[in-house]
């Protein structure tokens, strides 16, 4: 996947670049509207990460250009402004999603995959890994042929793991993913633990491999290379 990161803060842009590069994405970074227009004039991108507050203007203006000339590209707005106006205008002008800073990189990745699935895979919204397959339309999880009886949160959790395979997912990131921005996620760590525990149990009971490992002190990891026995 080819990704254009339009973000004026170099450190943040590098974080995103490094994280996504490890997924094998081809990432390009630019920090101003001017360079962004240049790049958009020359290349096509699968996904454009657009920061709204740029030094030479508001990124929302760029949406019109993107929508006119890059119909295939997915646009994800990343903004520190959690202003409702920006969010609504952004989505109205054709952005696919809106993410507020500070976000977890795993969350960003999950969002990118989600839009990509929604727009590019035309209906076949299946996420697969080995024997696990998730249908993101029907929220149905299968281990081989066995339908996994998961709750909605467990499904979300498993999807989050699958999208971010071989990444250490912190409990904060999981809590924020499952319960959103406005709940006090610090207090939800117990629930994260419970959810992960239940999910692992359900997968094992259905005969699946337990790919989810606990990472000491930090969180969890979906390990695709070596199954935890």
């Amino acid at each position, binding site marked *: 996947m080819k990704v254009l990161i339009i973000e004026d*803060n170099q*450190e*943040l842009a590098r*974080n*995103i670049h*490094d*994280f996504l590069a*490890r997924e094998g994405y081809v990432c390009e970074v630019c920090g101003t509207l001017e360079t962004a227009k240049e790049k958009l004039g020359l290349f096509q991108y699968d996904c454009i990460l657009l920061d709204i*507050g740029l030094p030479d203007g508001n990124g929302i203006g760029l949406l019109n250009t993107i929508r006119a000339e890059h119909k295939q590209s997915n646009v994800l707005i990343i903004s*520190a*402004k*959690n*202003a*409702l106006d920006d969010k609504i205008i952004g989505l109205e002008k054709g952005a696919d999603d809106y993410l*507020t*800073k*500070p*976000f*977890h*990189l*795993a969350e960003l990745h999950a969002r990118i995959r989600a839009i990509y699935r929604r727009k590019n895979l035309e209906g076949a919204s299946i996420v697969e890994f080995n024997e696990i397959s998730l249908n993101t339309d029907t929220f149905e999880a299968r281990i081989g042929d066995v339908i996994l009886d998961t*709750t*909605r*949160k*467990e499904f979300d959790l498993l999807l989050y793991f699958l999208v971010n395979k071989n*990444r*250490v997912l*912190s409990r*904060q*990131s999981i809590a924020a993913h499952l319960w*959103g*921005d*406005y*709940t*006090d*996620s*610090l*207090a*939800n*760590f117990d*629930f994260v633990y*419970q*959810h992960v525990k239940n999910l692992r149990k359900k997968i094992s009971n259905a005969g699946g491999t337990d790919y989810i490992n606990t*990472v*000491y*002190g*930090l*969180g969890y990891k979906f390990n695709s290379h070596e199954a935890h026995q």
Partner: protein
Amino acid sequence: MKLTNKFTLWYFAIMLVVLLTGGAIVYYEIQWKISRVEVVRHERLNDIIAQQIRSGGDYKDHPTRKRVSISVIPADSVPKGGYSYYTRGSNWNPEFQSYEFKLVVTSFYFINGRHYRVSSYSFIPSFYQLLPGVVDSFQWILLLLLILVVISGQLIPKYILAPFKRTLRVIQSFDLKQKEPVRLPATRTSEFRELNEFLKKMTEKAREDYRSLKEFTENASHELQTPTAIIRGKLDLLMESEIRDEQAILIAEIQNALERLSRIHSSLTLLTKLENYEYEAKTPVCISRTTRETLASFEELIQMKSLSLRTDIEENVYLPLHPSLADLLLTNLVSNAIRHNSPPAGEEEGLIRVVLSREGMVIANTGREPRVPTVELFERFKKGNPGSDSIGIGLAIVRQISDLNDFDILYEFAGGWHMVAISFHSRLPASKLLQNLLLPLQSRTESGWPKANH
């Protein structure tokens, strides 16, 4: 009372005073004028009679002598400097066989060395006979004026106050958030012009302040969130490198502190936005549905903590509330009820009760007694249990949302139950609501419901 009605009443009062004094003046004026005319006529008659005496002829049966008496008087009876005077009063009129008002004019003459006193009289209309006429005509005048004042009192202010009313309408619909300055109607009345000028300045200032505050909030948010995002990203990347256990613990601790920082920051920004009235309800939201959805999204947590949930949700309760705020309100209340839940003494399961009606809602949960008075729990960074992991801002947000929408909110702890009551109508106090909503339920179900102890 409306301004126009006030004006009309005042006009009417002034009119009444003017008409009453006017009536009195007219009455006395007419009375005086009639006497005066008569007196002049009689004086002339007396002069004619004096002329007749002087001429020495016999005028005994002359028509002038009909109501005249002439007498010769001694010199000392003539009043000093007196030439003529008149008296009046009610007297018997033999011609009409009734008491009438009699005017007598007496004049003194010195003719041929003798002093004469000539008196002539006539009966004139009594003043008491005039009075009803005066009163009558003034009644008509009063009636006419009254009708005119009432009609003009309704019509003229409508015309004169029209610019004022337009200004009022513009100001009533003024919204701090509106993008354009207020447009006030032009007027030729200088007071209204002044008012408009003032209002224009005020609203402009308010809009300016609001804008800069909003800008500041957003900038603060932007400037702080970006470094936080960088740190968070770096930690995410760091976690993936080869790290030892001690380092992992350090990273986890940084993560926790960072999480807290970011939560506090976003909550405070949210509170500021709430204070700035940035969330305006455009269409009523179905709070019944929001409640059910919120409860559904917490269903798993409720099960995990083995809580028993009982609800009594009235259908189709609509509230003029921004959907995000409705969501936030319920999320905070329900997650609080779950998080701070502990089973009552001697029981295994913690309980949650949610009651929603058109009047308001009550969310109650079993739990430990709070260490601080319940009222203080609405303050920012106040926690019932200092050891807990939460930031202690959820209830502050709940209260802010309630205040913003004129809801009355109450937090009570009684009999092992934490109860938060929100009344949707400002005239119904939350304490009353708590009683109303819990009482019928107590009778319906024998146990398991908190008791309202009021």
